[in-house]
């Protein structure tokens, strides 16, 4: 993966497979501590302690088509190469939370990438999930919550062309707004 956003997409897909109804994705850059923190939290079926300890092994997977599951091991390696870490917490029947952190300015820290272009497919492709996305740089935060949007749309499909345009612009503007606020300091 060449973008951290793609790793977030990969982890969020795990949450969808775990039949989560609520998924919260957070990205937080802290310029003072020079850390980049990301998390994906879900209320899916969760994993027992043994599974959690095995998930970071590239040769462990729940898939039946092959014997390799690289998403989490690769993300863990990427974080550890940048003075960071990956942490997984899970409770069977309640959900899972993945936290991953990087030294923000580390030379090997891959770019965040296209966040709006990552959140949009998730929200539109899995409309039965309640999505919350938070992006912050220091104290400036943008929160995207699809619940009030879906409520307002009242049954109109998210793949309706005008809705797609709205969602895309809303995400793009929200994220750009935070970046602008940060650069103005």
């Amino acid at each position: 993966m060449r973008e951290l956003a793609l790793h977030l997409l990969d982890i969020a897909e795990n949450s969808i497979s775990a039949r989560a109804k609520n998924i919260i994705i957070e990205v937080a850059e802290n310029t003072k501590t020079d850390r980049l923190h990301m998390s994906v939290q879900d209320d899916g079926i969760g994993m027992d302690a043994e599974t959690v300890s095995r998930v970071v092994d590239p040769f462990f997977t729940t898939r039946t088509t092959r014997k390799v599951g690289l998403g989490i091991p690769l993300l863990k390696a990427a974080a550890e190469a940048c003075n960071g870490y990956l942490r997984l917490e899970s409770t069977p029947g309640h959900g899972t939370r993945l936290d991953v952190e990087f030294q923000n300015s580390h030379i090997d820290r891959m770019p965040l990438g296209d966040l709006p272009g990552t959140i949009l497919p998730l929200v539109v492709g899995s409309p039965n999930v309640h999505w919350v996305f938070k992006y912050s740089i220091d104290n400036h935060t943008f929160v995207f919550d699809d619940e009030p949007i879906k409520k307002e749309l009242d049954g109109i499909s998210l793949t309706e062309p005008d809705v797609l345009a709205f969602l895309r612009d809303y995400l793009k503007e929200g994220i750009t707004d935070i970046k602008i606020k940060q650069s103005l300091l």
Partner: protein
Amino acid sequence: MDKVKSLEDLKRVREEALKKRQAKVVTGQKEIIVGMGTVGIAAGARETLKAILDYIEKENLPDIVVRQTGNIGLDSLEPIVQVVTVDQPKVTYGKVTPDIARQIMHDHVVGGKVVKEYVVEG
């Protein structure tokens, strides 16, 4: 100055969508499924899905459902796109780049003609 979207904009979007719904003929729902397993993502499935959503938006296509699926066991053929229409069995396409996705949208989803050269056999 602040171009931030608000729920007010969304009200207008909803009204427009309702008006369109009354005006058009319903042609039957079409479903497009994009594989988003780790291998699919690494192979560029996100860009493929973005191209599909962009096409829907720009061509103003109604009644299209877009879904994600996990790994379906065709790793070397990712990105995978499946198209389901009311009058045809599910068609699975392989190695779908954004350009090929646009062709599939134009020829198959809109035009009703399967794009044979990218279909995965079996």
